[in-house]
């Protein structure tokens, strides 16, 4: 071994050691939000933040079905009792009324500060008289048993007004005093975890706790047939993580084994097979280490992408081994093929560079991973591998395969015209498709299966959870400022509600009015003497017994003096959770959210909200906003993809010093991309960002084939060895990516199937369009 060879091996070994050192310290994440785009506007940032760790992300919807109704109700009660004091949950509800008692007491005690109906007119003679008339009507009805006891304390009905407002937010139906779906087949519960939605370990534990409690509850209630349904962002995230872990592990393993088998058949040497994997393994290590250093942690999906790296990086060693022979020792071979190989690596790197700038942290990771991995694999192939190959090694199957392949290529020339015609037709067809084949919804990237999504939808509908599609977001420098603005917006919304523009709305100010509003309500309550006089006048002629309303006088006066309610005062009630869900502090800004229900006239709504002035009030259509967010990124990725393609073309033209040669290399790739897209669309796929990324990889991988097929290469080297090496390379690439095409994670399967199809077509098209077999 030469001194240079020893140096190369030494450098490689220390590089691998350094990579292992970094990888051993690497944090692995599966936070799917990494694959959500970084948000450009404040409103979109709220959206992404809410998805990541908002209260919404902590909700777990629970359904119990498959047993008789009374058993289900029993399981629901038992489950709630078991989880009630579990520290993992901030809140757990099944509709049982004893759980609402704390809320009721809070509302009753603070009704004069909380009720937005409290105003000076409410306590005038006319206001009181109207209220008492309403109460008298109720006393005559069968409801008197319910109304009567509270009447002396609350003749103006503030408590009932508050309860009505809360009730207005909708709630599930009840059977046997717990929540049930409308058809009565499913008992319903809602849990909220303490841990944020992105803390997947904690989410997993919480879900395990629910499952365990359910098992026990079902056994205790003798409802063995009962089934538990769990849904919600955290549930999806945990199951996606499990899916990603499984995919990453299984598919990498399967790809490795399949590629190894193919190579073993080709090489008939375990040692050479082992050597082929050396650049791949080095590349994967370097890729993980680079991402770990660059991003602080490595995403599970990036790791799953290791499998795709196998498909491409393994090519480099194959070119080397298949082209080496007794006449051409490895060192000489690598020197000969290196310029072409280097150009191929550079093309791939340019393709992946587009990922780096995509704006998706997750995709940027994939880009860095691939670039570092490919560069390392190529370098190891160039400087380390030749030192390790046994002298005089030659791939035997060249002699049997090459003649067949060369004959095929010779015949392939006849297909040139039909192929070009087909590609042109498909290109026109694609152009006519316009934007339809594009999936322009953010949900298209969701890792959640459509059956899980529809179960989630069913549970949400059953629970009467408001369909938070449109909401008004209010910003302020402080919590109080945000609440005050929310109250101003609330007045406008109430007006719109009564004119039928919307069916209803919720506001954090219902649960915690601003201090200013609370003080105004306190001022609206007359002093004891005046209130007593007004009341006496209002009662005149009505059959109420004298002194009945003494508790009313007393409690209003207490309310008039009580300190204003603060966030802490709501602690322990369900109202605190509502408040927490609707008010958030992020980056020194306070946000209040007012979800809207049943918007019938969106333009009238927009006009009214716009009239409130530009500062700090935003009408947010979550669906529209998230889709706009996604479309912005799709456009951005497309732009970078086109730039990447242009950069590749320039690179090739410069390196080959001929536009004609560059065209010969690029034409089969363009054809492959067009036909691949047509196949995907014809197969019913809707294209998303991941497909664009995959097409870039097709160009990166395919350019290797076309470069080797390009006539000067074919002329310089042994054509037999070149075509055989290309067959093996293509086979391993198609296997590596094709296996990933079967992954359940959408990112992986989109990239896998696209690259597998594209790489195969690139080779075939290059053979037809570019290859010239010297005679």
């Amino acid at each position, binding site marked *: 071994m030469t001194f240079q060879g020893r140096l190369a091996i030494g450098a490689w070994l220390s590089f691998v050691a350094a990579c292992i050192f970094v990888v051993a310290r690497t944090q692995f994440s599966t936070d799917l939000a990494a694959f959500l785009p970084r948000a450009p506007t404040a409103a979109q940032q709220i959206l992404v933040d809410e998805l990541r760790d908002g209260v919404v992300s902590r909700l777990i919807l629970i359904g119990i079905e498959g047993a008789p109704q009374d058993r289900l109700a029993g399981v629901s009660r038992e489950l709630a009792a078991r989880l009630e004091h579990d520290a993992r949950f901030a809140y757990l509800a099944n509709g049982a*009324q*004893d759980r*609402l*008692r704390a809320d*009721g*007491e809070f509302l*009753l005690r603070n009704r004069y500060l909380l009720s937005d109906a409290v105003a000076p007119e409410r306590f005038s003679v006319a206001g009181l008289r109207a209220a008492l008339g309403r109460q008298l*009507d109720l*006393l*005559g*009805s*069968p*409801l*008197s*048993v*319910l*109304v*009567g*006891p*509270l*009447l*002396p304390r609350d003749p103006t009905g503030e*408590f*009932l007004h508050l*309860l*009505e407002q809360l*009730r*207005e937010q909708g709630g599930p*139906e*009840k*059977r*046997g*005093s717990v929540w049930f779906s409308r058809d009565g087949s499913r008992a319903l519960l809602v849990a909220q975890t303490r841990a944020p939605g992105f803390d997947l370990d904690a989410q997993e534990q919480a879900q395990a706790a629910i499952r365990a409690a359910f098992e026990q509850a079902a056994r205790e209630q003798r409802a063995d047939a009962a089934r538990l349904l769990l849904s919600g962002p955290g549930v999806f995230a945990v199951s996606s993580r499990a899916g990603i872990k499984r995919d990453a592990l299984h598919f990498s393993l399967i790809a490795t084994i399949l590629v190894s088998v193919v190579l073993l058949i080709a090489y008939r040497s375990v040692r050479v097979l082992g050597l082929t994997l050396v650049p791949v393994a080095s590349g994967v290590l370097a890729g993980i280490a680079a991402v770990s250093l660059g991003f602080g942690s490595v995403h599970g999906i990036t790791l799953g992408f290791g499998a795709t790296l196998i498909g491409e990086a393994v090519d480099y060693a194959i070119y080397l081994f298949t082209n080496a022979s007794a006449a051409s020792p490895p060192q000489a071979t690598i020197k000969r093929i290196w310029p072409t190989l280097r150009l191929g690596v550079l093309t791939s790197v340019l393709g992946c560079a587009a990922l780096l700038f995509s704006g998706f942290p997750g995709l940027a990771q994939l880009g860095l991973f691939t670039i570092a991995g490919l560069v390392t694999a190529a370098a190891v192939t160039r400087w380390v591998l030749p030192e390790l190959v046994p002298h005089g090694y030659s791939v035997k199957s060249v002699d049997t395969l090459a003649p067949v392949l060369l004959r095929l290529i010779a015949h392939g020339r006849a297909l040139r015209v039909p192929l070009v015609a087909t590609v042109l037709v498909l290109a026109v067809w694609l152009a006519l498709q316009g934007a339809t084949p594009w999936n322009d919804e953010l949900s298209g990237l969701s890792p959640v299966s459509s059956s899980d999504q529809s179960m989630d939808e069913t549970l949400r509908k059953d629970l009467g959870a408001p369909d938070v599609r449109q909401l008004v977001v209010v910003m302020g420098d402080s919590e109080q400022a945000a609440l005050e603005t929310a109250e101003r917006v609330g007045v406008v919304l109430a007006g719109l509600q009564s004119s039928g523009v919307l069916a209803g709305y919720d506001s954090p100010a219902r649960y915690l009015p601003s201090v200013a509003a609370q003080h105004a309500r306190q001022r609206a309550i007359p002093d004891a003497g005046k209130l007593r006089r007004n009341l006496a006048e209002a009662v005149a002629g009505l*059959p*109420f*017994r*004298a002194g*009945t309303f003494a508790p009313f006088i007393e409690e209003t006066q207490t309310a008039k003096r009580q300190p204003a309610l603060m966030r802490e005062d709501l602690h322990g009630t369900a109202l605190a959770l509502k408040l927490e869900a609707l008010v958030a502090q992020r980056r020194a800004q306070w946000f209040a959210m007012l979800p809207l229900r049943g918007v019938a006239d969106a333009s009238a709504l927009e006009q009214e909200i716009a009239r409130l002035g530009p500062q700090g009030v935003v009408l947010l259509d979550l669906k529209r906003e998230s889709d706009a967010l996604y479309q912005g990124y799709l456009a951005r990725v497309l732009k970078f993809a086109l730039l990447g393609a242009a950069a590749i073309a320039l690179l090739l033209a410069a390196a080959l010093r001929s536009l004609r040669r560059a065209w010969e290399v690029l034409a089969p790739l363009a054809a492959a991309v067009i036909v691949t897209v047509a196949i995907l669309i014809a197969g019913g796929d809707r294209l998303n960002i991941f497909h664009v990324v995959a097409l870039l990889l097709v160009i990166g991988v395919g350019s290797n084939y076309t470069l080797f097929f390009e006539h000067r290469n074919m002329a310089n080297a042994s054509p037999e060895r070149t075509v055989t090496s290309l067959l093996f390379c293509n086979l391993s690439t198609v296997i590596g990516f094709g296996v990933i095409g079967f992954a359940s994670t959408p990112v992986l399967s989109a990239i896998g199937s696209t690259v597998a199809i594209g790489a195969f077509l690139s080779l075939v098209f290059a053979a037809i369009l570019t290859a010239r077999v010297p005679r």
Partner: protein
Amino acid sequence: MISGPVPGRRAERLLAALAIALALCAGRSAAAQESGLQQNGAGWGVQQLMRELGAVKRSQARFVERKYLKILNAPLELRGTLTYVAPGNLEKRTLSPKPETLTVEGDRLTMESAARNERRTLRLQDYPVLWAFVESIRSTLGGDIAALERFYRVELEGGRARWRLYLVPRDPDMRAVISLINIGGSRDRVERIEVQEARGDRSVMNIYEQGR
């Protein structure tokens, strides 16, 4: 829950709100009062009474209901008609002071008020206290002892010619509102229903049967 026109929906929410209010009050209630009910002698008993009541398939009556409420200085007086059709259909039509109709059909309770232009329908299962209250009358008329026993401890006093049923709610939430329902009658007729509320209010309904 099935709702009527818009005003009905509002009223229905009010009802739901009241159900919560009720739960709230339950927390503060006194324990149920113990009544010293007598078991009557052998021969004729609850089973026989129930069988006889259950044999009536249809009845029509006038009623006068007086509500003695502590906060009012005069009782409220309601008049109207009652119609029962076996099994389980009951209509209480109040004519004065304000027209209002209450219908129970199976699991559904409908309240209609012409004066307030309201109509609301709700499921009894969703409102346990109202359900129990309805069953005290409906199950007695239908002779359904199992349904009665489900909600109340039932005791009988007197003989076939003049009997009295004492119903004490089993559910503490219900007991916090209604402490005792006392139904009096003669043979297969229900003549008087008295409801004792836990807070001391009371209502008495006298029933005058008009036909079957």
